[in-house]
């Protein structure tokens, strides 16, 4: 009983039911329900079902009343933080539907015939003679086509089908432009001012306190041309923002461990890419005391005092640093574009 039988290679799997320990007693006897034998119970069930269906129509009408009676839009938080219209419409529609559903199921359980029916199964496979006939038909078809005797026709057809894949792929070519070196460059360039991302305000080193973090952007995002039109707008603005967004932090110059990194800053103010090197979320959770910057998406953590190297999480690379200096007017400006691609890694990134 505790160890299974073992069989040789001939009969893998389970032993077929040879001698069952207990014989199948057969389907149990049908027991009548109260509604089968008590006319009172039957009429009660009938009334329940009909009342539910009638109640449903009431709620359907109430839905229409609520649709016209209740205003929407002005205040979406009248009731439990939600709009009165939404609550009333949802409740009426929900109850109208539930009444139909519950009524139908009550009907089937109490009033419909509940005798179980037995249906016999058949093997999923076709009968043997059908299989033989089908195979014969298939063979006859293949024979008539001559595909086996004419390999040239067969192979050239297969080749033609394979080549049809080319137009299918080539036709999709215009889905987008080739990447070129677009991912390797941003709008940052020499002497472009680093400005606040909210209002475009220019920043002087003395505006920043030790420990402060400022979300910043290149000034060109706020610049207008001669006609007063923005220099960069619409889709282009979003695309450039997705690469050029930066953060400025000010630390005590002595706290900066990476001297190369310190040289790219001004009086302890360093500028790093805001785009995570993992999958590209904008990073912004700043731990002032430890100089750690945390990505809110997947928690990669970078030490800004140590060249923004990864100290925790799934990111594989440090955050690129933007070399900055001050211009003649004393404002923070970029020394150049980023010296490496920002954002998520890609194959040809290097």
């Amino acid at each position, binding site marked *: 009983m505790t160890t299974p039988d073992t069989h040789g290679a001939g009969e893998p799997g389970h032993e077929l039911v040879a001698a069952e320990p207990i014989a199948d*007693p057969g389907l149990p006897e049908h027991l009548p329900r109260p509604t089968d034998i008590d006319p009172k119970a039957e009429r009660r069930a009938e009334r329940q079902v009909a009342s539910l269906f009638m109640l449903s129509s009431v709620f359907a009408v109430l839905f229409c009343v609520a649709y016209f009676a209740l205003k929407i839009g002005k205040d979406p938080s009248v009731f439990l933080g939600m709009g009165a219209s939404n609550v009333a419409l949802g409740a009426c529609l929900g109850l109208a*539907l539930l009444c139909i*559903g519950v009524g139908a199921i009550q009907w*089937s359980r109490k009033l419909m015939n509940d005798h179980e029916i037995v249906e016999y199964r058949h093997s999923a496979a076709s009968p043997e003679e059908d299989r033989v006939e089908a195979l014969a038909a298939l063979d006859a078809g293949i024979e008539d086509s001559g595909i086996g005797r004419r390999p040239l026709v067969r192979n050239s057809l297969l080749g033609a089908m394979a080549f049809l894949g080319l137009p299918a792929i080539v036709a999709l070519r215009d889905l987008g432009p080739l990447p070129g070196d677009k991912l390797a460059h941003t709008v940052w360039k020499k002497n472009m001012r680093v400005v606040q991302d909210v209002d475009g305000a220019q920043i002087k080193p003395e505006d920043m306190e030790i420990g402060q973090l400022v979300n910043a952007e290149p000034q060109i995002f706020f610049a207008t041309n001669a006609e007063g039109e923005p220099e960069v707008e619409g*889709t282009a603005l979003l695309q450039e923002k997705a690469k050029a967004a930066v953060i400025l932090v000010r630390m005590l110059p002595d706290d900066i461990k990476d001297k190369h990194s310190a040289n790219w800053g001004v009086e302890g103010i360093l500028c790093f890419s805001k785009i995570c090197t993992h999958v590209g979320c904008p990073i912004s959770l700043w731990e002032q005391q430890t100089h750690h910057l945390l990505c*809110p998406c997947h*928690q990669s953590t970078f030490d800004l005092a140590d060249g923004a190297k990864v100290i925790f999480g799934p990111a*594989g690379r440090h955050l690129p640093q933007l070399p900055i200096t001050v211009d003649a007017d004393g404002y923070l400006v970029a020394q150049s574009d980023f010296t490496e691609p920002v954002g998520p*890694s890609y194959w040809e990134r290097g």
Partner: protein
Amino acid sequence: MTTTASTNGTKPAAAAKPSPAAGIANWADERLGIATSAKKQIRKVFPDHWSFMLCEIALWSFVILLLTGVFLSLWFTPSMGEVVYNGSYNQLRGIHMSEAYASTLNISFDVRAGLLMRQMHHWAAMLFIAAMLVHMMRVFVTGAFRKPRELNWIIGGVLLLLGILEGFAGYSLPDDLLSGTGLRIADGLMKATPVLGSYMSFFMFGGEFPGDQIIPRLYTAHVLLIPGLLLALIAAHMLLLVYHKHTQWPGPGRTEQNVVGYPMMPVYAAKAGGFFFIVFGVVALMGGLMTINPVWRFGPYNPAQVTAGSQPDWYMGIAEGLLRIMPGWETHIWGITMSWNVFLPGQVAPMALLGIVLAYPFLEQWITGDKREHHLLVRPRDAPTRTAILAAMVTVYGLLWAAGGNDILATQFHLDLNTITYFMRGAIFIVPPLVFIVAKRWCISLQRHDNDMLLHGYESGVIMRDALGGYTEKHLPLSEDHAYKLTARDRDVVYTGITGADSNGVPAPNVRVDQIRAKLSKAWFATNVQKPTRAELDEGHHHAELEHEHDAPLEDHAADGHQFDGRHDVTGDDLTHKH
């Protein structure tokens, strides 16, 4: 089955003249010839069990998604063209945003019942995927995927994958800050593809991320391409279900050769049809009373902004968890970058997981060598290895899900984020095998318990004291139906493999592979407890008779266990157990 069908006796047995329904049926059959198939299908039998309802939840959620989705498509504008919002929602008025986001706000605040439909659509999507997943677990753990249903298992797995993709495409459409962050992550995942990454990204977004193409393209996928595939596969799934006939639980009169239950017309039409309205009604209540995806609070997408605690919809949680706990491995060599940290968890792992799930019926079949058709379900305890595999898989899923919310866990339970992540990195490899072992042993002990009940009866709760002061609990035999149910299962047979060489000393081909198979089969079955044989049952009953003899002197005082529970009146009862 008795034949005492009771009617109220007010209707005649046959109608006096043809009913209008018969007229319509006749008209249709003369043109479509449907009577031949209809005669079988109208009274088609479906077996009853609560767990068979899970697939219905998935099916009806899909219907609700189609209905509410059509409503939404009447107002939604799938465009990334920039507009200035000027609608009813004060806080965002005057702000630049895409037409997609503006029209979503419009549906929420200026179209009556629009918010209700949006929320119903989103809740139904959550329910659709959840129901598919739970349905799949039910099918797995009861062995309903076995021959001849393997293809339906694969169709189901593909449906789940498509459902998840459809959900992702759908919640990306409003172009709000949260969904845009999701697309940004999808962009990062794509860029990590070896060789083609940046090209795939540029082709998908029509240029550099975010471009102005992705919303219209996702819209086409969301309303045409994926729903079309879903619809076709659901149809195939259900046609196969009808062809194979539904599986059933073993029991008295319920065998491999039949299916016992209620006819489609009228019982299942009423039950399943009624259940559609119940699912629909519950979704409507959820849409009315429970806020979901309040995009107006997130604001329009801006690639330089993100909200702390950003979370995708629940079904993306395991992909999120994989991404979060992966160590930051990247290779830089010969001027190329290979980001294992994104490629492995983002592309390889999910596909590998899906591949294993889809291949599972064939793997199991190869190990067990069981090529027979199965229409009776197996209780989870009677397939300990399979049940343990499910338990381990659920554990992996749960751990990854928790890992996908490691920041939420850290802030809610005041835990250290880094510790949670380190823990998960180890736990994902250590905990599932432990759960596997526990689940398997648990199943086996439940099997032992079943055998105890068969051989010695169930514990009646009646304590007997004999003349020497010894105490025994009285065991009563199971009812015949119950005992049959417990034994209505196969005996497991371990596959021992082919012998190493034939009589001429020629080694059999594939011996090594076959030995692996034999070892796996042993691991699969060897510790299972088999049901008792006829002889063992007889011996058990004989033992019970001996016990009875032992109890004989106490006969006058023995109780049948029912005198205090009010089940029957004991006045005049001799309170003895009659065998």
